[in-house]
């Protein structure tokens, strides 16, 4: 493989980009809901990174749907199982964050972190 751009570099760019983007949104945006969106983006980025660690170019999904499939032609199933867990956890955290934000909004009337001054941010 002489070409610089391979599937795994593309995947790494995607995951790195999404993680940095997500963190950027969390640290610079002031809207709380947007911060949660940033969290979701960073989670997606990590998930792509995890799946790409098990990816072997040209191989098929790890499902023995017929007997002709060979083990050496399959990708690693473990990272995929980890990502299933990570997606569900990410959803749980986002939903919880939004519920908290709704209640905080009911108490303060704003979603802007610079206007919520009960505690030091």
């Amino acid at each position, binding site marked *: 493989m002489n070409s610089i751009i391979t599937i795994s570099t593309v995947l*790494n760019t995607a995951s790195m980009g999404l*993680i940095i983007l997500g963190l950027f949104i969390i640290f610079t945006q002031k809207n709380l809901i947007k911060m949660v969106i940033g969290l979701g983006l960073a989670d997606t980025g990590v998930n792509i990174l995890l799946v790409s660690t098990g990816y072997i170019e040209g191989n098929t999904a790890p499902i*023995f*749907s017929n007997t002709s499939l060979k083990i050496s032609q399959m990708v690693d*199933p*473990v990272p995929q199982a980890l990502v299933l867990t990570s997606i*569900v956890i990410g959803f749980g955290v986002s*939903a919880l964050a939004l*519920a908290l934000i709704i209640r905080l909004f009911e108490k303060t009337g704003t979603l802007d972190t610079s206007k919520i001054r009960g505690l030091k941010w």
Partner: protein
Amino acid sequence: MRKLLSIVLLAGFIFYFATLTGGLLIPSNSSERSSVGLDILSRTANETGSANAVTSVVVLYRGFDTLGEVTVLFLAALGISVFMKSTSKVRKRTLDQSFILKTGSRLLFPLMFLFGFYIIVHGHITPGGGFPGGVIIATGFFIVLLTSESVEFNKTLMSVLEGLAGLTFIGLGLVGLFGSGNSFLQNFLPLGKFNTVFSAGIIPVIYAVVGIKVAAELSSVVFAMKESK
């Protein structure tokens, strides 16, 4: 000040990640790769009887993680019900839904339920399983509850269902622990014929429990957020 700090932090992070991608994420040579996953691929068919290796990892090899994962969803549902508790009055629906919507949703619900069930019980053969299947069943509930006035969402029933499904999961594991296997979540059912629905021992059973739990938890998450006023 905060913005400046975060930009400095992010610049550091980008640099950090860039060096990492340069040095660390060099595409590894597939022929030399040795990993737990490739080991699992070679033994899953004989050991678990599940055609879908991802399912066998999720339910059996890393079943303890899955128990933790449904616990996280349980926690999220519980947390939302804690935060929304002080305002949990049942809202009278004033919206008058159209006849087509109501009838359509009632027709759709059994189909969605069946489809979700199909996805769950075929989790060890095809892609899918407890999590997407549970989501589909939960979506079926949403459609009915959003369109018809007569059906009320029963919170107590849902929390009982969540708890019972969790207890069943642990109970199935404990049968393995105190039974012959002497280890938590041990597969104690026969493996059956490879690539059929009734195969793979406790995998479909556990996935069904996971599906019920996920469906109940997701419904209570969405309804706790929506209904409380």
